[in-house]
């Protein structure tokens, strides 16, 4: 099979030679990665697009400094995360939290089952699954940015603990611990909202 996709090295070289149109391939390939990081730091579509564009402009401007010591995805992810942190710091209207401890203690983490009561009282398997899914998603949105970024990178981008740790400049063990804690928290929320037999 002929590999029609250019290698990343080749792509970067062509872009650095001035072939800016090739950069579109990079954008198309990594926009989901950038979005999965930026999504928690922005609260509307307009800001999201702006931030993602700024990230890619930064990637383009710094491409000559990329030395292939890491994967391009990790490098872009790191730029995206740092940019989002700066963005949040500049726009203090977005609150940031680094810890999920308060969420455990205050009991304000997530919605409970009652919020679905007005949706539909018909119980069937599909609906139950959808309900569980909505509950999990709602609770993820209540997690601090860092935790949600880790979850998105692991589950949506299928990155390893190591790659995530490089992006966030955190120890691998910390990334793993945050990920496990977030999922455990989601599980506890799920168990507190449903009876065991509803989850089987």
């Amino acid at each position, binding site marked *: 099979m002929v590999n029609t996709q250019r290698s990343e090295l080749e792509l970067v070289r062509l872009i650095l030679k001035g072939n800016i149109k090739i950069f579109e391939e990079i954008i198309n390939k990594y926009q989901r990665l950038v979005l999965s990081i930026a999504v928690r730091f922005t609260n509307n579509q307009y800001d999201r697009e702006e931030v993602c564009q700024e990230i890619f402009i930064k990637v383009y401007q710094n491409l000559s400094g990329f030395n292939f010591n890491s994967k391009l995805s990790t490098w872009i992810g790191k730029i995206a995360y740092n940019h989002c942190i700066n963005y949040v710091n500049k726009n203090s209207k977005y609150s940031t939290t680094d810890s999920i401890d308060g969420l455990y203690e205050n009991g304000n983490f997530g919605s409970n089952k009652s919020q679905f009561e007005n949706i539909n009282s018909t119980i069937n398997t599909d609906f139950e699954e959808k309900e569980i899914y909505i509950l999990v998603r709602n609770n993820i949105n209540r997690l601090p940015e860092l935790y949600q970024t880790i979850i998105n990178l692991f589950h949506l981008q299928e990155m390893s603990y190591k790659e995530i740790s490089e992006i966030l400049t955190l120890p691998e063990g910390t990334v793993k611990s945050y990920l496990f804690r977030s999922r455990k928290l989601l599980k506890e929320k*799920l168990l507190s909202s449903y009876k065991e037999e509803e989850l089987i």
Partner: protein
Amino acid sequence: MNHLTDDQIQAYLDKNKLENLNDIEDHLQVCQKCRFNINTYRQIYTALSNEDELPVLSNNFSFTTISKIEKANEKKWNIFENILIALTFIVSISLSIYFFDLVSFASYFREIDFSLFTGLGEKVFSTLSPNVFYITAAILITGIIELLDRFRIQKSAKHINH
């Protein structure tokens, strides 16, 4: 074997390397409580891995981003070009003063000691043979005309755009 901990279940679902993988799998065969736990986690994993929840960027996202980069590059080049034009002017004026006897003309401005330029020019150009000088001068003059022309075209293009 004791019931599986949350960490063990998550490590198992994350497909981490586990020394006691066989023990875990054997335990799951017989323990209903742990099977329930793992199924709960599986539902969470399914929800977390659903990409549909991620908002989408506009269809022309890459196009608009490339346009922004091109604009930024153009701006950068304009600054560079203007600096180049300014430098070319300085060099050409200096050459003119030296080679076309503009010193006598400029001597009307008595406050300025133009002999400094003459001395500088002599030092620099005494090392060049006459042929090299003529070629250099020709290149510089052509360069100046070319840059002025580009500058004029850009200005008129901006004017048209406005």
